């Protein structure tokens, strides 16, 4: 050990000042405070606030002394059995079905690209990512063109003699779900690709050497090793899906396909005097989604500890 650095508590064992490493957390902490905690507090302040007498719009109540949580009881009442119950259930249903489809479609794609695509891997990745250089809204609007009654999808179908077409945009659950899948699937594929890519070929060879079939190798080696990637990908796509409102807006517009994001949007942008209700609903949704996040973190944490033995 270099003697000149071992003189005091200011230095740690590798000779760095003690504050240096923790200091790396500062940008993250500042980021978290400015872009998460402050806005989150502001949403609380709006939920607990009052209404401006002239402008008829929410005035945030910044002082917690005056906060009155009954608005949450009302919003929860509406979500469980009230006006918003069906919207909440539909949102959960859409997100889970869309996530399951992302898993079914995305896993083979990620598997192929990471393990079977050989030297053209970069090309496959590029092709998967290329559409995402275009804004999400623009891509959804293109779907509106593709799916409209005289759009390209129906023109294509008519080449095969199909005479009557479904009216794709008239409020079908599956169209909205497909929109969600299309919109979010690359965010699922990428982390999964990274997880699959990290699997050491030697473990797979070992599995085969020990007599496992291809299927057994997948099920007992590859799948468990990629599970955290799957979970991470699912969390990444589910969080924004729960808040999505433009996908159902553009691809349907029907009350039958309304999601909670639409309801929040309505309280914030249309019936603005009800902004407090929108804010409370936002917080309830965030708490629900945080539940998913915590499940993910706990699982990952456990896996990391198991790996350490």
């Amino acid at each position, binding site marked *: 050990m270099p003697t000149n650095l071992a003189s005091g508590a200011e230095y740690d064992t590798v000779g760095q000042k003690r504050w240096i490493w923790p200091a790396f957390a500062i940008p993250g902490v500042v980021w978290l405070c400015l872009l998460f905690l402050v806005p989150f507090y502001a949403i609380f302040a709006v939920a607990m*606030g*009052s*209404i*401006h*007498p*002239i*402008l*008829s*719009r929410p*005035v*945030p*109540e*910044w*002082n917690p*002394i*005056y906060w009155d949580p009954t*608005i949450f009881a*009302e919003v929860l*009442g*509406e979500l469980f059995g*009230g*006006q*918003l119950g*069906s*919207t909440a259930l*539909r949102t959960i249903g859409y997100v889970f079905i869309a996530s399951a489809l992302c898993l079914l479609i995305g896993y083979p794609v990620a598997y192929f690209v990471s393990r079977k695509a050989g030297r053209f891997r970069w090309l496959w990745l590029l092709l998967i990512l290329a559409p995402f250089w275009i804004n999400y809204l623009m891509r959804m609007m293109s779907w*509106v*063109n593709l799916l*409209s*009654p*005289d*759009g390209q999808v129906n023109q294509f179908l008519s080449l095969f003699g199909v005479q009557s077409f479904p*009216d794709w*945009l*008239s*409020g079908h659950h599956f169209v909205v779900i497909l929109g969600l899948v299309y919109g979010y699937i690359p965010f699922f594929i990428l982390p999964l690709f990274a997880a699959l890519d990290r699997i050491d070929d030697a473990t797979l060879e070992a599995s085969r050497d020990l007599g496992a079939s291809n299927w057994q190798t997948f099920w007992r080696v590859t799948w468990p090793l990629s599970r955290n990637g799957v979970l991470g990908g699912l969390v990444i796509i589910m969080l924004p899906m729960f808040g999505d409102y433009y996908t159902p*807006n553009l691809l*349907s*517009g*029907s*009350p*039958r*396909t*309304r999601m909670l994001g*639409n*309801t929040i949007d*309505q*309280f914030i*942008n*249309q*019936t*603005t*005097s*009800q902004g*407090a*209700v929108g804010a409370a609903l936002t917080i309830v949704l965030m708490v629900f989604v945080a539940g998913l996040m915590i499940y993910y973190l706990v699982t990952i944490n456990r896996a990391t500890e198991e790996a350490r033995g």
Partner: protein
Amino acid sequence: MTYHPRENWNPSRRRRVYTRRDFLQRAAVLGIAIPALPSILAACAERGGGEGAELVIGTPSSPVQQPLFDDNPAIDSGLEPESGPLRLYNWEDYINPEIIPMAAEALGVEIEETTFFNEEEALSRLSSGEVSYDVWFPTSQRIPVAVTANLIQPLNHDYLPNLSANVWPQLADPYYDQGSRYTAPYVLYTTGIGWRTDMVDSADIEGQENPWDVFWNPEYSGVMGLLDSFTDTIALALFRNGVADPSQASEADLTAAGDALVELVDLMNVRYTIDGAYAGIPEGRFALHHAWSGDLVNSQYYWPEDGDYTVTRYLWPASSEGSTVNGPISNDTMAIPVNAERPVLAHQFINFMLDADNSLTNFEWVGYQPPQNHITPDFLIENEYAADFLRPALVTPEDFERDSVWVQGPLDAETEALWSDQWTRATSG
């Protein structure tokens, strides 16, 4: 579905009204001032406090003058224009992009445009006092709020010779702001029904006693849509149910309107959109859509090349023959925010927009009519600015004098809560 209004979800009924005293108390407790609030609240206080401030709301049958305040005078006459840039605050896509360089050249300054997506956003930015624009384009129903909240300044008519020279008398001295103390009119619109004759039997709408009822005609299930705009759509359901003045609707009226809209989900597979009339009808997504009059004029640019624009129709139930129900009319205005940095230039710009030729140039692109004396429906049709089959989409000065018109006023928070409840029901499926 039975739905008693008392059981309704209505948090705002119990919500506190914010007063200046509350604010000062709380600011003292916190020892801080929130930057956005003091300006609004101070403004309220000077108006006699948040509780006492009354909005002055006019209708065509009972016009009103907006109050003037000593601390908010109009600018003096004969001032030299400031140097630029002039800052506009407008709806998105609501001014001809060619007009801006023309005005910049005429006024000899640069012009910058900032846009807003909805008026709530615009009101909150202006009331924060942290931004400064020179010309703002609010709808007429926002004027009472903007005046009472001290957001706009009075106009000096010496700078606006075009106002009395060119503008329809009904709007040079409008019901919502008699004497045009604070505003000059921008463009006009009615709200009605848009359809295409190849997919809808026009006889189901034209000549009907209650044209609004077509939205409940199951023959058009799956091909109809309503505006994703709660005031327009709740008002539509109220009109359809025979309510003459939606502003005076009782809770029972509103519940019935909500019931009627809920019925549309299964009966008609209704969809709520904003682009359904101007883009959805040409694309064939809709045969029939609740529409603003300018939507149908603009829809000509959305037809595919092999499409036939001439099948487009518009009907405003307030003016259609045989109709016994009412319909909405409204207009946008130009106003100068109270903290505008270039009020003289702003006046000159407003006068420029009220010029006969300039307003016509603007119409060509915007599709919504300015209330100019020479811009009559006949003039627009003869000069091919608008198609003859869309004559009902063109507004005339007399339209403001019909008994069957309704103008939307600002909803107070309590009433809006009732409308909001019904809107949530209608759109939740």
